[in-house]
């Protein structure tokens, strides 16, 4: 995976967390992983299409998810009901939207899907030949772990889509 795709996501996530949760963010150590992603409590998944393609996942504990929706809405959530689930998914959506603006500024025009929230431990999500880049972001409320399985789309694929052939 092109590590140049990493910074837009780290910056976007840090900006959104600081703005929405009003707290500082500390970045943990990066690592690469080729094996399947195994879900923990919560993961928000979005697909990217365009000049960068693949998936991004935001992994967090239920406690962190509840902290996010409680802080953002200003009302205490103590269970992950439908409204809270929607809030956690939207959190991933807003970070990814912001990251795509930064990717576009770097020359990669990319669109995103609507977010999907995966709940429950033990589900496996394989990214096949995409190696995932993993970066944990720590806050006073808990951790959000970003998983990126992205690659630049081959120029030839883009030309086919534009009808050049």
């Amino acid at each position: 995976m092109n590590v140049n795709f990493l910074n837009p996501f780290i910056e976007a996530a840090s900006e959104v967390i600081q703005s929405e949760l009003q707290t500082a963010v500390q970045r943990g150590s990066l690592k690469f992983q080729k094996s399947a992603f195994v879900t923990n409590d919560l993961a928000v998944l979005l697909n990217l299409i365009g000049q960068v393609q693949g998936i991004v996942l935001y992994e967090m504990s239920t406690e962190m998810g509840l902290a996010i929706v409680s802080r953002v809405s200003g009302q205490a959530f103590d269970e992950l009901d439908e409204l809270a689930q929607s809030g956690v998914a939207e959190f991933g959506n807003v970070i990814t939207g912001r990251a795509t603006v930064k990717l576009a500024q770097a020359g990669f025009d990319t669109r995103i899907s609507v977010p999907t929230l995966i709940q429950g431990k033990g589900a496996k999500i394989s990214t096949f030949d995409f190696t995932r880049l993993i970066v944990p972001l720590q806050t006073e409320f808990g951790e959000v772990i970003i998983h990126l399985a992205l690659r630049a789309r081959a120029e030839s694929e883009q030309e086919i889509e534009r009808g050049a052939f």
Partner: protein
Amino acid sequence: MARILVVDDAQFMRMRISRLLMAEGHQILEADDGSNAIAVYKSSRPDIVLMDVTMPKMDGLSALRHIREYDPQAKVVMLTALGLESVVLEAVKAGAKDFIVKPFELPRVLSTINKLML
């Protein structure tokens, strides 16, 4: 006070925006995707529409075009996580009055509403 249609597929975001705007004295209508937004617009003729872009079924840009075709005076503001320049240009070309990127700040949203209500 304005009658504002909040269009977003995320229930949480609709609740959040609606609550903030109701606290400012505005009356709120809601729709969870583009096609519902068109139906609510036609039946209720709100003063302003706050429209998300990325939504299942019908996206916000398509809904914007339909609403502006039905009512060329419609005041639609895009409120979205997808702040790409290409999307902003597409929205402006289709007649959006403003473009606000999430995470939004309430004063920015209120200032846009106030300007559109003049």
